[in-house]
């Protein structure tokens, strides 16, 4: 149990760092979605399935969709450097 929890926490910390360090904004949105998804796994492990479902639906699904839409709206939607230079 403790090993599973520490593994999930490690994934959360790594993807939270990736949000800060990734230069690609879409990849950063995906990484923030990974943070929410592993938080949902933690909630499910700690026997809070209601909160886990909310976190998975809103945190991982809806908010990353909303962030991606906002990126597109602001004109920051660039897949990668090669495609931009084409």
């Amino acid at each position: 149990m403790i090993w599973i929890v520490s593994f999930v926490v490690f994934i959360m910390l790594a993807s939270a760092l990736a949000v800060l360090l990734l230069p690609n904004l879409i990849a950063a949105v995906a990484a923030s979605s990974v943070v929410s998804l592993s938080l949902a796994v933690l909630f499910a492990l700690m026997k809070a399935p209601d909160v886990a479902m909310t976190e998975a639906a809103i945190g991982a699904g809806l908010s990353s969709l909303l962030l991606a839409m906002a990126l597109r709206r602001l004109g920051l939607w660039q897949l990668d450097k090669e495609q931009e230079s084409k």
Partner: protein
Amino acid sequence: MRNISSLLFSGGLAFLLLVLATQLPFGHTSMLLGNDILQAAPDEVGTGNIVAAVLLAYRGIDTLGELAILFTAAASVGLILGQRSNHSAKRDKTITESHFITSRASDLMMPLLIIVGFYIIFYGHLTPGGGFQGGVILAIAFFLPVLTRPGTTIDHGMITIIEGLAGAGFIMIGLWAMLYGKPFLQPFFDTFLGNGIFGSLWSAGTLPLLYLAVGLKVGAELAGLLVTISEAPAAEVERT
């Protein structure tokens, strides 16, 4: 200098949180009300899921306020990010057909997501889940075709009608309880709805109806918000 001060600030905050966290007994409840609710809820409200009993019976007005907050937030985000423009005709020419796998996957996922969303709403008083989670899943289900086929839209009038009816329905069920001499928004069983057997789908009185109204309102609101934002034109990159 600014970096150092922000580092100091966040370090201090982390220290304070750490001190607080070491004082707390982890996993032991310090709330006395929770135990009372756990024991009284199956008899008083008749739900298998205690969270639903707290959300809609003991804290029903909180849920009403939550719906109002969600409505305000969705309206303001739609106002700021989703400005309509008259460039939509120009945008229609540049629609790119999405990939085969993406569009077929969305066709396959949409009915499944609708079933899962309604399941979570209808069984909200028995199993984990409920109106909010199911509503979000419904919103994503109806947004999927818009995401994969950029030409399609959802009728905004329909979304507004569903949202208004669901919100009015929530308040009407609350007023209906007052008609029988109960407090506003209290779920009740002793009318023609019947009490039902504890743990069956048809139980807990009007609470499933309240949850259905919450789910439809959340779903319609979020679907409308997502569609409004996706219809807004992408900004031209001028600075780079």
